[in-house]
């Protein structure tokens, strides 16, 4: 009897440990990022992060302003989201409500295939094919800009957003739709006025998760956005995102330098942004009881 209780206790503890591991990892990452970022706040001071320039390698004066990187990430994320939302939501509605089973079986694997394209490949495609296209289409001096980055990131986010939105739409209770149809509403009216509003929290959460993916994506933006650290909200300008900055510069810095801790400050900000987005998505899901 005693042994049995001991065994159960052990099993329970193991399971608790497993479940809390990821939590622990997140906390440790936060601590580590903070530890490496704090020296910057102490020595050059937080005011240096409020600069309007990011110019970490200079013979004159190094600048570590986060503003251009924040606007860079913002431009790319907003552009990508604006492109993602209509495509994904309409796509999800079609797949969930209108498509015949055969079509669904055909469409879904292709959408999932899109999610599996490595980002470097997409980036190279962007550099060689999409950037010249964007340049010609909008008559720009260069195709290396926020818009090209946003377009490619939308390609990466669409599969995620479609599949979660589709789940949300499919899980709308049948009786809602049936009631609507019984009252004489057409198929289209039912979809637009009943099903989609009922699934809206799930769709919003899907978009937020997609945004989280977009903010964190690195390789694609590094290859096609031109990486000029400008303070701009214009998607036709070159932008430098937080992720690309960390990826491009972390390899080069000498450990413990100001530049090194400045990059960790960028990392902390980036992590906070994705954290807030994910948290927001979860709260939306929870509030509407779509997550158990």
């Amino acid at each position, binding site marked *: 009897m005693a042994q049995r209780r001991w065994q159960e206790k052990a099993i329970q503890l193991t399971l608790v440990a497993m479940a809390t591991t990821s939590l622990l990892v997140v906390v440790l990452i936060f601590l580590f990022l903070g530890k490496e970022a704090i020296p910057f706040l102490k020595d050059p001071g937080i005011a240096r992060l409020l600069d309007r320039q990011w110019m970490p390698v200079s013979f004159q004066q190094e600048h570590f302003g986060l503003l251009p990187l924040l606007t860079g990430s913002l431009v790319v994320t907003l552009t990508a989201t604006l492109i993602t939302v209509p495509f994904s939501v309409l796509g999800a509605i079609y797949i969930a409500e209108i498509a015949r089973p055969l079509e669904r079986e055909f469409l879904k694997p292709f959408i999932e295939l899109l999610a599996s394209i490595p980002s470097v490949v997409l980036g190279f495609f962007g550099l060689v094919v999409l950037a010249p296209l964007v340049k010609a289409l909008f008559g720009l001096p260069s195709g290396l800009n926020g818009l090209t980055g946003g377009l490619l990131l939308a390609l990466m986010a669409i599969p995620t957003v479609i599949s979660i939105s589709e789940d949300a739409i499919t899980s709308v209770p049948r009786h809602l739709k049936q009631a609507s149809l019984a009252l004489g509403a057409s198929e289209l009216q039912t979809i637009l006025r009943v099903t989609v509003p009922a699934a809206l929290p799930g769709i919003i959460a899907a978009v937020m998760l997609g945004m989280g993916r977009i903010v964190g994506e690195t390789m694609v933006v590094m290859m096609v956005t031109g990486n*000029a650290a400008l303070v701009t909200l214009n998607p036709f300008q070159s932008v430098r995102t937080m992720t690309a900055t960390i990826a*491009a*510069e972390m390899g*080069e810095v000498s450990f413990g330098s100001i530049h090194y801790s400045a990059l960790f400050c960028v990392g902390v900000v980036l992590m906070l942004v994705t954290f807030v987005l994910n948290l927001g998505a979860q709260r939306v899901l929870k509030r509407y009881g779509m997550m158990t």
Partner: protein
Amino acid sequence: MICLRPRTLVLLAALVALAALPGCSRPDKTDATSKAKQTLTIKGSDTMVHLMSTWAESFGATSPTQVSVTGGGSGTGIAALLNGTTDICAASRQIEDKETALAKQKNITPNEITVALDGIAVVVHPDNPITELSLEQIGAIYTGAIGNWKEVGGPDQPILLLSRESSSGTYVFFQEKVLNKKDYSQQARLMPGTSAVVQAVTADRGAIGYVGLGYAKEAGNKVKTIAVRSAAGQPAVMPSPATVKDASYPVARALYLYTNGAPQGKVKEFVDFCLGSAGQKIVADTGYVQVH
């Protein structure tokens, strides 16, 4: 990462040169363990990756030692040397005072060996009628003082600035030599590798970029190399092995290998090979300039 065959190396080198993925160069933190297996790791300059991997391949053909080469930038290589994660660091710039000080702290004595010379070619789109510029003009273009080709005798077209990432030794060298230590214009697009610079110059009529002589030669007719005057009254000189060697082409530099202390054992074998006649023939074959 532990024992790469020469073919794989060339592929890897091509990949690194293609996208200069900073992330790619991370995984060899385990090199300390691989040293026992007669492998030699070289890390550093993206400019030198092509040269290093060709050296590694032909050295590996006659020696039991396997040489693995990764890029990431000169700064990355020097950091790796200071952290003891690479045997040899390939650098396209000299070690900085900051890094020497850090080396002293870590009890490492960087030993510099000049193995080749390199000219930096200034390249423009093939349709650009400009054939020559002075150092001062190129500097003014890159600092943003000159923004249109008509200001240097070309067509009325905005100049699209293309630069390497700030982690590149070439970036720092160009800043010191051509920009006179001034900051790059914020409009400059920082491309993640030499191939990306070539690709972007090919795509944009108004573009100007700088790449190693070897890469300019390889790019052939896709880009146009322009002649450079060291000062207003001086003759314009095209970059070539001869003009780099006699120092008449102004944008040239030495390429270095750094070792910890004087080279010994297999490190010495490799360095001797690079400086020997076979190694120096490879220097010429890959588009660089021999030291002897």
